[in-house]
């Protein structure tokens, strides 16, 4: 990844039939980065992708690709290629002809086409499948043909529109890794659209979280997970427990809030005044749960009873009802301290979390 900008989106908005799908999007994409557009369906991420590829024109604003304003440029003049969700392979052509299609359309001499097609197929590990028809390949192989068909043209940017969503779980994991490796090897910028937060976190250099036509946060996977900029990001990426509370006092730049009957003190990062509403977010895996006989000092702990538990192999997820009535989700990992994690419904437990691991947000609306 370098600091060179490859795509710049400036004040882009898009409306269909007077309905705003995207509102004033600004985004700078660096050369060689793996960027993910993440959001629920209908948030406008695919529309944004289609405007970069040239299948849609922005209603307002400009898109610059490699420093050039792309306004009015047809898809093939943008040095950008798309891998479609449905793969969109040409069913009547062999794999080789599919991959060669773009080269032939652009008048590359035939003696150059063959080695480039072979190279592209080798890259996606399909060198022996050139003579097959797409229908004779598995879903994962078709996916790779679609990628080869796009990268063989040496695009500046590869756009991937939920390319893994029709694969089964295990294959999706493998393809995620392969795509990541391929991207590093090629050094091409990948713009990847997905609604799967786990996929976004595990693959991307940067994640662009979108919601209802606007970008809600841009950051590294770690940033968007650990420091969500707003409630919608926190809720969309991972599980989260939300406490609604008020700032009861401020001393030395620190706020004190009351969470389910217990005071907590945090740095005042959001310029709260006394009486302001605040949200305190705690991730389930940050909550620690103890049996009643495991703890002696319970002065800083919440008491609750286990309402539900789910064994997930690597973790045990609990739903714990506090004395205040609030239900918390917790996730516990098996480790050397606690290798059994056996709970029964209705069991009394104690829980707390490390002070400082919470996210404090101003109350919205």
């Amino acid at each position, binding site marked *: 990844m370098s600091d060179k900008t490859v795509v710049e989106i400036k004040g882009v908005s898009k409306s269909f039939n007077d309905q705003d799908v995207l509102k004033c999007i600004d985004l700078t994409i660096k050369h060689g980065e793996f960027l993910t557009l993440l959001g629920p369906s209908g948030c406008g991420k695919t529309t944004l992708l289609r405007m970069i590829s040239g299948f849609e024109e922005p209603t307002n604003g400009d898109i610059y690709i490699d420093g050039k304003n792309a306004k009015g440029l*047809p898809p*093939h003049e943008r040095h950008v290629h798309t891998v479609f969700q449905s793969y*969109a392979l*040409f*069913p009547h052509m062999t794999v080789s002809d599919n991959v060669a299609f773009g080269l032939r359309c652009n008048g590359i001499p035939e003696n150059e086409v063959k080695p480039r097609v072979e190279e592209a197929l080798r890259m996606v590990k399909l060198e022996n499948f050139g003579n097959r028809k797409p229908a004779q390949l598995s879903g994962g192989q078709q996916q790779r043909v679609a990628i080869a*068909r796009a990268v063989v*043209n040496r695009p500046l940017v590869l756009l991937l529109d939920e390319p893994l969503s029709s694969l089964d779980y295990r294959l999706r994991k493998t393809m995620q890794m392969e795509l990541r490796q391929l991207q590093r090897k090629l050094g091409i910028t990948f713009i990847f659209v997905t609604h799967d937060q786990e996929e976004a976190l595990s693959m991307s250099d940067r994640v662009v979280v979108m919601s209802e036509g606007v970008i809600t946060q841009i950051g590294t996977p770690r940033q968007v997970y650990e420091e969500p900029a707003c409630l919608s990001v926190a809720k969309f990426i991972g599980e989260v427990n939300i406490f609604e509370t008020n700032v009861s006092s401020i001393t030395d730049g620190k706020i004190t809030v009351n969470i389910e009957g217990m005071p907590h003190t945090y740095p005042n990062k959001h310029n709260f005044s006394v009486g302001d509403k605040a949200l305190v977010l705690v991730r389930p895996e940050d909550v620690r749960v103890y049996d009643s006989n495991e703890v002696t000092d319970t002065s800083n702990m919440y008491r609750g009873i286990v309402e539900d538990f789910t064994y997930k192999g690597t973790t045990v997820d609990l739903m714990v009802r506090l004395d205040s009535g609030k239900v918390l989700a917790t996730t516990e990992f098996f480790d050397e301290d606690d290798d059994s994690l056996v709970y029964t419904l209705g069991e009394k437990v104690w829980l707390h979390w490390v002070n400082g691991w919470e996210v404090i947000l101003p109350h919205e609306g």
Partner: protein
Amino acid sequence: MKKSQTRPIDAIYLALIYLFFYLPIAVLIVYSFNNSSYSLVWHGFTTNWYHSLFSDSGLWIAALHSLIIGVLAATFATIIGTLAAVSLYRYRFMGKGLLNGMIFILIVTPDIVMGISLLLLFSILNMPLGFWSLLLAHITFCIPFVVVTVYSRISGMDKNIFEAAKDLGARELTIFTKITVPLLLPAIISGILLCFTLSFDDVMISYFVSGPGFEILPLKIYSMARLGVKPELNALCSVTFILTLLLVVLSQKLTRKES
């Protein structure tokens, strides 16, 4: 419920349906070999009617005319209809909705209305009735059937295929010849065959738009039948039936191989 076991009543029911469909044709074929001019009683086997049929030059000429009209009408109707279907599917243009509706109206329009309106058109244009008027009329009533056949196939295709081709730098002409036509081939073939059979056995519209100088087979048969059903006619219809059957089998084989 067991599916493999056939109850007698099922078999009888099925047999009755087939009888209802094919008995008239079977009777027709059998009587084309009957050694009697008018009687419905079996007088022995003969191939005389086929001999006289094949030596009747008037019939041959009418058949040839029908063949020419059928092939030309099917070809042009399929070209125009395919282009129309592809445009309807792929492009946005003025009057698209209207065109779509008009095509379906043409399909359900009674032949007699079509025949009279075409006759009216040709006489307004002062066009002599004969080969050209017949050909134009047949192309006209065939086009909607091609549009419907091709459109139903293209609308089942992944729209992204065309976008992918465009994305890879294909011009519209390349997309049409390299992607659209090959993928639509089965529908185009069945369109041609459908048009040919529609054209080959059309009486109603042809009746209005044909002239004395250019006789076609269905009208010839129609006028012959008005003087009573002769055994030659049975023979002629049997030959036509067998030819149509071959065509259907051929088209089935072709489309099956494609898909």
